[in-house]
């Protein structure tokens, strides 16, 4: 029963939501809105679970692992400071919460994102090698597309621009559409397997 009841719930709700797609009646719209509201409610109810998990793991690290103690304390202090700052009554451009957000959070996130530039360079150095003819095609294409940013003298600039637009609009688009069609069919098939109870990996297994 421990497995059967969730599978039955998935089957019934999955079937209802599939049928809902084909039914324009107001009752069907209400059902859709109601079901989506439930998703939001579940997400919010699960939030304390996540916070508890994060804090528990961090406190254990702070107590038991000297290597991670400092970072764990930073995590706990950061969490408490942001929570308190946002619970305060003052809000607006000069509030503590806004300043912490603008001058700590935003720069930190931008820093992590900026690491991509370095990682792209090292990944390009490692990966774009003429191992096979396909890899050579990839290398040449990457070369041409990257030259788009570089200001070349005419007529190379307009040739390159036209070639890049063709690459992006034709072979790139064709291959992406092929992958998208495959992904779409795969998603339908996988969703069918989930609704019919054939696929149960998300519950922990087949048995």
């Amino acid at each position, binding site marked *: 029963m421990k497995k059967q009841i969730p599978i039955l719930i998935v089957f019934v709700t999955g079937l209802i939501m599939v049928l809902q797609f084909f039914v324009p009646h107001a009752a069907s719209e209400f059902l859709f*809105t109601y079901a*989506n*509201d439930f*998703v*939001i409610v579940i*997400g919010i109810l699960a939030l304390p679970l996540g916070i508890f998990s994060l804090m528990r793991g961090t406190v254990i690290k702070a107590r038991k692992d000297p290597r991670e103690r400092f970072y764990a304390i930073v995590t706990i202090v950061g969490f408490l400071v942001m929570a308190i700052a946002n619970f305060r009554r003052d809000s607006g*451009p000069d509030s503590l919460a*806004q300043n912490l*957000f*603008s001058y700590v*959070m*935003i720069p930190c*996130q*931008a820093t*992590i*994102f*900026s690491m991509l*530039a*370095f990682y*792209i*360079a*090292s990944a*390009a*150095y*490692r990966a*774009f*090698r*003429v*191992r096979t003819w396909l890899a050579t095609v990839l*290398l040449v294409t*990457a*070369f041409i597309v*990257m*030259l*788009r*940013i*570089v*200001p070349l003298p005419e007529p190379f*600039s307009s040739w390159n*621009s036209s070639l890049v*637009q063709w690459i*992006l*609009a034709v072979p*790139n*688009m064709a291959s*992406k*559409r092929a992958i*998208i069609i495959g992904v779409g069919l795969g998603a339908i098939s996988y969703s069918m397997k989930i609704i019919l109870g054939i696929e149960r990996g998300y519950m922990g297994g087949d048995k």
Partner: protein
Amino acid sequence: MRDGMAWYDRLLNIDRRWIYVLMALVVIVPAVRPFTVPVGISGEVRAVHEAIEAQPAGGVIHLAIDYDPSTLAELQPMAEAILHQCFDKDLRLVITALSQFGPAMVDELVTRVATEHGKQRDVHYAFLGYKPYPAITILAMGSDYRVPFPTDYYGTAVDAIPMMQDIHNFSDVACVVSLAGGNVADMWIQYGNAKYGVPVALGVTGVMASDYYPYLQSGQIFGLLPGVKGAAEYESLRERPGQASRGMPYQVTSHLLIIIAMIVANVGYIAQRRAHAGGR
């Protein structure tokens, strides 16, 4: 050959931190010796510009600023350029922020640009704020903005906002321009355009841009601003150089480094392959 390693082996196994150092250096160069980069205008960027330019004074645009601080560097310049254009043309803006950590950033941006143009909140623009689960929010907005947003970001009832009196859902806006750093862009296509038929244009990061050319070709989006270059093109169309135009030199130098790195790596690889084939 030092340490028993051939030059091509050393070249191929170079510590990646040297590449990071080189990248840091080439990014510093434009800061020390600034230069301008000429920008050609692409059709997909021009389409967004012309669609907004074609709106009469008082027309309504929905500007969905759906990025968060992590992609601010690429997407904020296009947000600013579009805001300037809309306020120059006396258009009315419905603004939402479907990224969890975007609202405060959007509030600061819109307030600053609106103040420059002397535009008033609730009269010339309405900032509705953030709601979780973007797909559900977009579906609800298509029915009525008041369903997901009974109040705006500042707590004012949407029904009490003067600008929103004649704006109910997507059929009351000329188009939606979504600036997104994640899959919210896909949701605007799937739920905004496909379900409600509202014209959608996207501004996305450079990495994501190539994903959306199929939608441009099929007409599901009418325009596309790809990354910093797209933003620089938009600023060029507005004749108002901004952050994106100032960022283009950095793009040029870093791209050149990557191109050189690829060439150098392949020189070493070909040399290594020849050496191994020659049996040395």
